[in-house]
């Protein structure tokens, strides 16, 4: 007889999800699933709205990465009005995006993944959290808060609000950057870079001391997808979409607007969240991952000096081939964090950032537009179809957590099989399963496009009878 374990909620992830683990009479795991329980409704809600409202409406999908939705929506609107926006506007949007990446990545590492790394999987849950970090290292915790605040400050100085900016508009942005605001941000940026470097040291030290775990935990062979610059460098705001296979061979390099030619979405009856895949390889051979690990796997370089040094170290992990271990997401995330801070500095020092050439009007309305951006968690696609007046007829949003859906589900199964003993269940075992999901920093508010109200459970279920024999609930 097989039993089922369900984890609900997965602590410290966004939104709603459930993990079900089926175990047999010997306590061994047969199979496991990562479910997303909530149905997404934001696309439907968008229908009938005017296209230019989307940069204001879609950030409401998520309180964590609203800037990513804001900018992806603005880029889709640029396409609808067929606007090649002025360079200063691109710089300003990218700067705002760097603020988003800094606050999100810093928060994740120091306050969400950090407790697992600093205290270990088996540590008492009472200390294995952000409070434990504060007590163990208050200075580090304060730096984490300052980093998060700095990222938010970039967003606020441009958009006027820290959480839901109203800044990017079709054709550009609606406000210039003052010299005073630029100088205020520049004043702190080197300190922020040093804080991130401290985080990188912690992550590398942890990887070094836990090599065996890192090299066997959630190791998956998949393709990888992310934006790259013209020269193949790491890119978060613009560029072409690059897709590579598990060996690192180039599969596709395409303009984001043609994503429907390459990406299909598979449906399973046990999850509302769809499973995107590379069409030419089909389902499930065409599964791929996105986010920090994927972006560093598809990139050939990073165009800022300190991040490039770390990137070389990252590339050496698997001899230049894609790095597959899920725990390396944490290291990759911090390298990107460093890139974002360095890139923010470059942008602030660019004379065009102060220009008032920030908006272009075309008077055109094309029938559809696509905006693609690298959100902190991975590739974010906004696609709108509009009528001749510009009202949204249909919208399609593919979010990072969706792209990683297969990897999270498969990773949960792999980790459960490796660590779970159904007859002797411990907190540490369950935390490893949750830890796999935290590698991907999923945002289920985004993926379900709904407000996060529902928790997540781990259910232990008998494979043969379907009976729930145990349940762990986090609240």
């Amino acid at each position, binding site marked *: 007889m097989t039993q089922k374990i369900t984890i609900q909620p997965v602590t410290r992830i966004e939104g709603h999800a459930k993990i079900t683990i089926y175990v047999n009479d010997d306590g061994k795991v047969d199979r496991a699933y990562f479910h997303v329980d909530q149905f997404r409704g934001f696309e439907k809600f968008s229908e009938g709205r005017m296209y230019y409202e989307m940069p204001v409406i879609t950030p409401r999908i998520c*309180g964590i990465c609203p800037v990513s939705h804001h900018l992806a929506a603005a880029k889709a609107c640029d396409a609808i009005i067929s606007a090649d926006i002025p360079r200063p506007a691109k710089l300003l949007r990218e700067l705002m995006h760097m603020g988003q990446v800094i606050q999100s990545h810093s928060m994740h590492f120091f306050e969400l993944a950090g407790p697992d790394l600093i205290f270990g999987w088996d540590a008492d849950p009472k200390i294995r959290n952000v409070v434990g970090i504060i007590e163990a290292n208050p200075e580090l915790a304060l730096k984490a808060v300052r980093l998060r605040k700095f990222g938010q400050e970039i967003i606020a100085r441009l958009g006027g609000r820290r959480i839901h900016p109203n800044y990017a508009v079709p054709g550009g942005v609606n406000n210039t950057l003052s010299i005073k605001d630029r100088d205020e941000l520049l004043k702190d940026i080197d300190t922020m870079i040093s804080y991130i470097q401290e985080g990188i040291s912690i992550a590398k030290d942890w990887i070094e001391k836990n090599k065996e775990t890192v090299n066997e935990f959630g190791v998956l062979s998949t393709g990888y997808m992310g934006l790259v610059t013209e020269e193949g460098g790491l890119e978060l705001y613009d560029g072409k979409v690059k897709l590579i296979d598990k060996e690192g061979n180039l599969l596709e390099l395409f303009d984001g607007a043609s994503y429907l030619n390459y990406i299909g979405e598979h449906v399973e009856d046990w999850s509302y969240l769809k499973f995107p895949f590379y069409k030419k390889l089909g389902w499930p051979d065409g599964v791929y991952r996105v986010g920090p690990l994927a972006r560093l796997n598809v990139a050939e370089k990073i165009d800022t000096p300190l991040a490039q040094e770390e990137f070389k170290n990252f590339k050496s992990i698997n001899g230049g081939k894609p790095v597959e271990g899920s725990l390396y997401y944490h290291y990759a995330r911090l390298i990107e964090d460093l890139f974002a801070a360095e890139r923010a500095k470059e942008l602030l020092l660019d004379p065009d950032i102060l220009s008032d050439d920030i908006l272009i009007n075309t008077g055109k309305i094309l029938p559809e537009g696509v905006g693609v951006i690298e959100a902190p968690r991975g590739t974010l696609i906004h696609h709108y179809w509009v009528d001749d007046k510009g009202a949204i007829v249909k919208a399609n949003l593919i979010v990072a957590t969706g792209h990683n859906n297969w990897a999270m589900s498969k990773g949960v199964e792999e980790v459960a099989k490796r660590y779970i003993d159904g007859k002797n269940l411990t907190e540490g075992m369950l935390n490893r399963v949750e830890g796999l999901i935290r590698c991907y920093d999923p945002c289920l508010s985004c993926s379900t496009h709904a407000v996060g109200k529902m928790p997540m459970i781990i259910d232990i279920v008998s494979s043969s009878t379907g009976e729930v024999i145990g349940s762990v609930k986090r609240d």
Partner: protein
Amino acid sequence: MEASKGTSILVIGYGNPARRDDGVGEYVAKRLLSEKEYMDVLSLQELGPEICEDISGCELVFFVDASMDQDEDFIVKEIIPRYKTPIFSHHISPEMLLALTEELYGVRPKAYLVSIRGYDFDFGFELTEEAKKNSEEAIEKIKEICTNWLLQRI
């Protein structure tokens, strides 16, 4: 919506205005902007640790949120710092924020959680009439507490 520096009272309204009555926090924050000579106001979709710095500069803090699980039109209760691992990654409870503020900045302001009953959390930007009425009543209560608190300081 930003908190400006210099006053000792902070009102933080939070929730998602795109989910109808979940927007009562923002509604209250906007309404209280007119009282800004003696209070700072923040409107957020959710609470994050960076707010600790804003809280650390205040002596009296209100957290205003929507509630699906109460029969009362609104509830105002004093809260104290309490450590609790957040369920969802980037969301932190008011009690946890107070605990972080105390731990990081050594400050423990008086704090209230104002829970306003909501009725409709579907997609949409309009509050229900009932939620709006509850919010107005909660605003009056917040102002009353602030007035009494200020009077005690004279």
